[in-house]
C-alpha cells in the first residue's frame, strides 16, 4: 500500500492498495460541488492501475489532486518493481 498527500485542509490523501480488481473510492468535503470533477480526474489519471484507489479530499485544487495522484502512482509502480 502506498500513500501520497496529507489530510490537511486544502490537500488530498491518495492511497493505492494492491488488489486483483480495479476499484475507486472517493471521499470529499466538497462532494456536492466537485464530486464529479474529482472522479473524472481520478479515473482519467489511473486508467492503467489495477488496484484499490482511495482518495480522501480535503478541498484540494485540481492540480494538487493531480500531483498527489501522480506521486502515488510512481510510488505504487516502484513498489511493484
Amino acid at each position, binding site marked *: 500500500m502506498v500513500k501520497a498527500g496529507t489530510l490537511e*485542509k486544502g490537500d488530498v490523501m491518495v492511497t493505492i492498495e494492491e488488489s486483483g480488481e480495479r476499484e475507486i473510492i472517493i471521499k470529499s468535503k*466538497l462532494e*456536492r*460541488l*466537485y464530486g*464529479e*470533477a474529482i472522479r473524472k480526474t481520478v479515473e482519467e489519471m489511473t486508467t492503467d492501475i489495477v488496484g484499490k484507489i482511495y482518495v480522501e479530499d*480535503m*478541498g484540494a*485544487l485540481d492540480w494538487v489532486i493531480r500531483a498527489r495522484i501522480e506521486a502515488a502512482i510512481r510510488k505504487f509502480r516502484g513498489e511493484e518493481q
Partner: protein
Amino acid sequence: MPINAVGREVPSEINGQKFKPFAGDMKTPPEGRRAGSLLRMVPESRSKVVNSIEEVIKKVGLEDGMTVSFHHHLRNGDFVVNMVMETIRKMGIKDIRVFPTALFPVHEPLVPMLSDGTIRRIEGSMNGPLGEATSYGAMRETAVLRSHSGRVRAVESGEVHIDVAFIAAPTADPYGNLNGVDGPSACGPLAYGMVDAYHADHTVAITDHLVPYPAHPISIFQHQIDYVVPVNKIGDPNGIMSGTLRITTSPSRLKIARYALEVIDKVALKDGFSFQAGAGGISLAVTKFLGDLMKKRGIRASFINGGVTKYVVDMLHEGLVDVVFDGQAFDLDAVKSLKEDANHIETPLAMYGNPYSSGGIVNMLDVGVLGATEVDIDFNVNVNTHSDGLLLHGIGGHQEVAAGSALTIVTVPLYRYRVPVIKERVTTVTTPGEVIDVVVTEHGIAINPKRDDIIEAMRGSKVPVYDIQDLQKKAERICGKPQEPKTTDDIIAAILWRDGTIIDVVYRVKK
C-alpha cells in the same frame, strides 16, 4: 411569483403574512405607526424574583402558538435559550415561534424540537446545525431571516409581535435593572435585547448574578422588566468571550488587509473620519493597520462603530478615536472599557441602522469593511448560504453597514480551498450590489463601475484594479466550475432586506 430588483423570484406571502419584493435600498417607504406592548401594572411588591423558569412561564401565561424572543450577547456560550426551550417542551407547550437575534451551534438541542411540535418556526439567524437542519426541511413553517436593524424594524412596525422576551442578564437586581458588564457571564452591552424589553408583552430577565437594588450601570431599566429569575449559570464565559482575538497570520489574508487599507487611505482617510470595526480575521487586521497608519499620519477618527475588540479599545486609549459606539463586545478588554470609559457608549440596536427611523449610526459611517461567503459580478453579496445551498449563517449587520457607509469594502479571498468566492451569480443575495463599492481580494480589487470617484482616486495606486468579471474568471480557472446545488422547489427560508422586503429565498437542499 414577482421578480425583485436583484432579479430573484420571490413569493408575496410567507407563513400567511404579506411581504413586498425588494425594490432597492430606501425605495419602499414605511407605513403606519410604531407598535406597542401590553400595558401592565405590577403588584405592590419590592421584588420581581421568581424561582424557576417553569413558574415564570406559568405566570406570563405562555400558550401554544405564541412568540418568544432571545438576544445573542452570550453567543456560543449561551445557556438561556436551551434552558427556556427545554422547559417549554417539557411543559407540553406547542407551536412556538422562536424569535432570537441569533442562534449558534450551542443551540443544537433545538433541532429535535423542530419536529416534535414544540417549535413551528424560527425567525432569526441560525449559525450552524439549526440552519443545516432547516436546509434539509426539518422546520414545519418557513424561516425568516432579518439583519440586526431589520429585526428592530420588524418589532417596531408590528411585523413581529413578541409575547414573551426572555432576556439573559449577566447582572440584575430584584426589581429588574440589568447590565452586561458585571458578573461571571459578563458580555458587555445588552444592545440586542433592548428593543425586545420595550416591545414585548411580557419580559423575563434570567440572571446568574443577582445584586442588591439598584444594579448599576443600567442597560435595561426596571420599568420594562416583569420578572427576574435567578439560575445557576446563564452561560459559559469561554463561549461568550472570544479570548484574545488574533489577527490573521495567512499571507494572502494579510495581503487583502493591506489592499483594503490602501483603498481606505486613497478614498476616505482624513481627520474626523469614521469606520465600522468587526471581529473577523481580515477585519481585525484592517483595524490594526489603520490604527498604525493614523498614528503615523497624526489622524484622529471621530468614531468607531463596533464589533468592539481590544484593538478598538487600544485606539480609544491612545487617543486615535474620540468615541466608540458599542453594540457588541467580543473580548474582556471591550467589556472593561465599556464599564470604565465615558467615551465608550453602549448603543441600543434601534440606533444602529433601522431605515424606518430618524436615522441610524450607519448613516454617519465613512468606511465599512465587511466579509462575504460569495460575491458576484453584479457586486451582490451572500453571507447566508454556502455554495452547496446550505443555510449556515445569519445576516448580522451586513445590510445596514453596507447601505450606510460612504465607502463599503468587501474583503474576500478569490477562493477558499477549492470553492470560488467571486461567482457569476451568488447562491443567495443578502446584500445588493448597489450598496457595495469595492471588492478586495488577494489578487487585486474590483470597483463598482458606478463609483467613478473611487475609480479616479485609485488611479496610480500600486493595488491591481480589475473588472469584477476578470476576477470571477480567474477564480473559475483556478478552481474549476462547481456543480450547481441540488435543491428542490420548497422555500425553507426568506431573506429580508432591512426594510422588510424580500431580497431572496433559500430552497430545501436534497440529502
